[in-house]
Each structure stands twice: as C-alpha cells, then as structure tokens.
C-alpha cells in the first residue's frame, strides 16, 4: 500500500500526466477502406534502423532481409499485441493492420539475406 502510494507520488512528481496527454493512437483499422499500402512502401519505413531493404547485418537491430515469413509475422503480432515487450517495437507495430504486417513479411522474406552493400543493384 505504502509502496503503491510512493510509486504514484513519484509518477505525479515527474510529470507523467503531461507525457500521457501527448500520446495519440488511432487504430489502423480506420484506414481499411483506403487503397492498400504496398509491402515495399511499408518496408521502406523500416530501413532507417534495419538498413536499406532491411539488410544491415551488424547492428543491434536485426536484419529483416530474408527473414522467415512466419517468424516475421509471429514476432510483429507479438509486438503489436504487446505479448512481447520491446524497447520500441510495440509502439511501431501498433500502427499496422495484420494485413499490412503480412505484406511486410512477404516483402522482406522475398529479399536475399545478404548485406545491402554486398548486393548488386539491378
């Protein structure tokens, strides 16, 4: 009881409420009737961290290129539904529909598991 109180006090002192107010969340289901976003367009949003075409193999964030399709879907759904806590992926996976996650999986699983800089372009 005392601890709960202390935690609440700590949170209010540090201004949690102000932070919570800035969070916005609209379910991706809202956009269902819009034309689809392709797997590649979705995937291009991942590259700033996971590398161009998801093909950076020597970083903290794992490569996505050539990732097994089912593994990709399973992990992303776990992130989306927060059954698997993560540093940042819960917040990211939240934004996509399950269809979009499958399209990303199709896209990344079709790419070679080779570092981007070692790939030939066309």
């Amino acid at each position, binding site marked *: 009881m005392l*601890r709960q109180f*202390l*935690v609440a006090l*700590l*949170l209010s002192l540090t201004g*949690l409420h102000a932070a*919570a107010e800035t*969070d916005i969340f609209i379910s991706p289901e809202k956009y269902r009737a819009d034309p689809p976003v392709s797997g590649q367009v979705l995937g291009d949003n991942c590259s700033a961290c996971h590398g161009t075409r998801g093909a950076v*193999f*020597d*970083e*903290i964030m*794992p*490569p996505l290129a*050539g*990732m*097994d399709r089912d*593994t990709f879907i399973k*992990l992303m759904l776990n992130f989306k539904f*927060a059954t*698997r*806590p*993560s*540093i940042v992926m819960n917040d990211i996976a939240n934004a996509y529909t399950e269809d979009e996650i499958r399209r990303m999986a199709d896209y990344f699983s079709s790419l070679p*598991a080779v570092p981007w800089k070692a790939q030939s372009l066309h």
Partner: protein
Amino acid sequence: MKTLLLISFSMLTTLSLNNQAVADPDTQPKAWSADSWHQQMRLMPKGDLYRGAQLAKQGYCFTCHGEKGYAPSRNAPSLAGQNQAYLYKTLLDFKNRLWLADHKDEGMHDLARTFDKQDLADLAAYYAAQKPWPKITPSGSPAIAHLAKRGDPQRLLTPCASCHGAQGMGGPNETPRINGQSYLYLKRQLSYFKSGKRSNDVEAGMRFAAEVLSEEEIDQLARYYANSQK
C-alpha cells in the same frame, strides 16, 4: 494499459535501486591468458538464479535471446542451459569492451555496464539453469564433418570437437555449446575470430583456429552445427 506498464516499470526501478553500480573499474587484461582467465573464473561470485531471472527481465534480454533464453530468430544466440562460466565471461567481456566485434556488441556493452559483477554472475546462473534449447544432429558434407571431428593436421587445425565436444555440446571451463545455435550467429563469430575483430578468446584459441579456415569452410561449419532457423 500504458499506465499499468509504467507503474510496473517504476516498481522494477525501485526494486533495483541498489543494482545500479555502473562503474566497476577493474584491472582486467586487454586479452585473456589461461592464467588470468582462470583466476577471474575462480573469483566469479556465486550466482543467485532467482535474482538473475529478475535482472534478465529488467534488461529485456528476452528481446533478442527469447523468453527463457531460446532465441526467437536467427539474429542472436540462444542462452538456455549454456555453460555458466562462459555466460559470465561473455557478460564481463561485453562490460569491459573486450568483445566488441561489431555494433551488435555495443548494445551488449551498453547493457552490461549497467550491471556489476554480482549481477552478471546472477544472470549467468539464471540462463545456465534454464532448460537447454533443442539439440540437433550436426550434418554436412563428409569433408566438413571430417574437419569438425578430426581437424586438419596439415594446417595445425584442432578439431572443433576436441574442445566443443563430439556433438558441439560444449566442454570444460568456458567452452560454450555451439550445437543448434543460429547459423548467422555462428558464421558471424567465426568470421570475426578469423579477422581478429573478436578477440576475447582465451589464449587466442579461436583466432588460431579460425585464421586458417576459408570463408567457405566457415559457412559450412556454421551450417553443420546450426539449427534450421531462417
């Protein structure tokens, strides 16, 4: 929902206030000799696996290494049931920047330096006590199986099996299990030993071995011991 999570996080914080020792200045050598490592190993604190479980949760180790230390994808090694001394040494090496072959290791460094030696021993105890990840039967071409089991005397190449065991299940002291580990992980580490980018091995043992392997052999050996995870 988010608020609930926040509250549980800050409870963790309050529980862990006494684990925050970041600096642990230690006169650790730049490379391990058998002597210096064995001395360090004897000084390894007794690990508390229940505390280790708590710390693993706090550090989100499961993100890459899986819920109970069985890696969910090909990107990171499994830890469940791994050799305890190896786990401790690994964490210590990350903390002290002795293992810094690529940027993945910087993540481990950033995390390990938030822990003190007791924490590292507790984490090692926790993962060592978990149910080991599934065993596989190593398989590959006859030539690669021969290399793994018999080595290559002409190149002064010790067989993998002589330290890691006939099935790659691990050996004495800090020799880790490699059987059923991720292919990408095994391949990466062998390449880093070959190039010398990874240099935390005792008496440069792995570097001597990997140095004479071709890239093709490294690839084949990694496949030989790896699981089938893609």
